[in-house]
């Protein structure tokens, strides 16, 4: 019962946390570029403004996809905080991700189409990495249950350092930060403008932004599993991880999806196998 309550609480708090993180992200990014940047609450203002706009959409399918994407992200957050199975969570978030691609494919716009294809490449890259991370977690703790992993007596980071690295790479791809901002990027200065999001506007774009906040919370939650023993350790780990994301975002140019499939995926797979082999031997 408490686990379900916890999940419901997370459902309500996750967007707030996600929005705040997005706001902080923008501030720190600006600082690193020696700009002032927007107020920390700017993401909330933006989304509020999007919801205030007149809904205009190309077709119903696109709207449906936006809702499913949000649902997928929200349900996976709920499952995570309710302590459910990692594998179940994995498939639920995959459904959401795939529906984002469907939504983009539902319009004939070439930007949206190319964005969708690139998003598929990104899913193809991070999903295997994610599942390997989950396998590693299960191997180290003996269970796929989030609740069980959470109550593991010692920090998992010590056993799974390489897998954590892989997870953060997957996280960068999932969050579409430079150098992996192919399918859509946080600023529109990109050859396909906003890729998967080009054809979304108004409240539906707001829904997608909301879903994105849920996703941020989810990935940070998964990261938190690696240091679940103390609150301080957990917070430090998350702060360092997110700061590293911002840092990488600001020190690299955007690369191409061919590079991602060639180098990033291979490196990720290699690191995961190394860590898994080490787990089996240890």
């Amino acid at each position, binding site marked *: 019962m408490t686990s379900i309550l916890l999940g419901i609480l997370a459902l309500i708090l996750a967007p707030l946390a996600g929005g705040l993180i997005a706001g902080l992200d923008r501030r720190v*990014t600006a600082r*690193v*570029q*020696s*700009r002032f940047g927007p107020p920390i609450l700017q993401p909330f203002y933006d989304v509020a403004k999007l919801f205030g706009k007149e809904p205009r959409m190309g077709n119903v399918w696109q709207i449906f996809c936006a809702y499913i994407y949000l649902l997928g992200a929200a349900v996976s957050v709920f499952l995570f905080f309710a302590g459910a199975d990692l594998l179940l969570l994995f498939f639920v978030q995959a459904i959401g991700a795939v529906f984002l691609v469907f939504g983009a494919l539902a319009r004939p716009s*070439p*930007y949206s*189409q*190319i964005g969708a*294809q690139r998003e598929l490449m990104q899913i193809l890259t991070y999903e295997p990495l994610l599942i390997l991370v989950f396998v590693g977690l299960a191997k180290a703790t003996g269970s796929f249950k989030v609740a069980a992993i959470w109550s593991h007596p010692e920090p998992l980071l010590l056993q799974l350092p390489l897998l954590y690295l892989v997870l953060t790479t997957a996280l960068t791809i999932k969050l579409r930060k*430079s*150098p992996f*901002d*192919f399918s859509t*990027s946080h*600023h*529109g*200065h*990109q*050859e*396909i*403008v906003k890729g998967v999001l080009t054809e979304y506007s108004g409240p539906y774009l707001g829904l997608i932004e909301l879903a994105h906040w849920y996703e941020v919370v989810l990935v940070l939650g998964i990261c938190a599993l690696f240091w679940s023993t103390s609150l301080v350790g957990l917070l430090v780990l998350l702060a360092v991880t997110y700061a590293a994301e911002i840092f990488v975002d*600001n*020190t*690299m*140019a*955007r*690369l*191409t*999806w*061919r*590079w991602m499939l060639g180098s990033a995926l291979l490196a990720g797979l290699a690191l995961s196998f190394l860590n898994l082999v080490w787990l089996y031997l240890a």
Partner: protein
Amino acid sequence: MARTIIPFGPQHPVLPEPLHLKLVLEDEIVQEALPAVGYVHRGLEKLTEIRDFNQMVQIVERVCGICSMIHAQCYCQGLEEMLGITAPPRARYLRTIWSELHRMHSHLLWLGLFADGMGFESQFMQCWKIRERIMDVNEATTGNRVIVSVNVVGGVRRDLNDGQLRWIGSILDQVEAELKALKKPLIDDYTVKKRTVGKGVLTAEQVYELGAAGPTLRASGVAQDMRMTRYAAFDELVFTPVVETEGDCHARLKVRYRELLASIDIVRAAMRALPEGELAVAVKDKPAGEIVTRVEQPRGELLYYLKASGKKNLDRVRIRTPTFANIPPLLAMLPGVELADVPVVVLSIDPCISCTER
């Protein structure tokens, strides 16, 4: 992936200006590119019919918002030749100083836009931060930031005093230090190299035949710089063109980066050798005749063809801007390039569409 046609521009966030490219893609590889211009044609050449030849100085400055000074310099230089007068030595040196400052701020602007074109936002800010120092020099010494309006037919309108010269010197030292710090993260960076090396390659023969100008030409190993024609103060200053041989986007990046450092040296040399004397000579006659005059703009060779018949208004002002010459090479670069690299390749010629259409 199927064959897709991507409309690239005229309103595209990567492009600072309205250029339309119809890209035929196959599997995200460009097969064919067709340009369309004409979105910012202002007919500035035509204005010569209603503005006299002195007023045209301010009009040709507005051909390009980045290298305005150099347009006016070229125009004045041509008219002076036609009128049979020469600008005083001090004026020629001052023109050189300001035009090199313009080249620097233009190149820094381009470095920023280029970084932005490949999704390197923090580098964009970094370049523009440095550029702002040059803009301050412009504003403090000429009165305006971009369209500085210091040229008149016969000389210049503003002077630099010793205090200003010293101040410019100190700013240049700062800029030089910051530029040197920029080399590693911008030129030698892994991701930047990944995005630029081997992209949009043209050989020396190809670019020459396609009539390219400026850094696009020099990045392929052709040592052609109009400053070698010794206009303004270049007859007395030492000048060697910056040349790279690879012919790809990275080479164009390197050429512009090294030209920045070269410009600092030119400004310093010109400030050291700045002769005393008049700022301008009086113009008494009306121009008559035909003149072709060329200078080196940040983007390459700029050509003015002026025709006059002893009236207050010129008969014809024809402006060939460097981007105009660089569009055919761009069309040759694009086929075979990945869609993700299109912004990089397009920006590598430093397109100035307003210049192109005038």
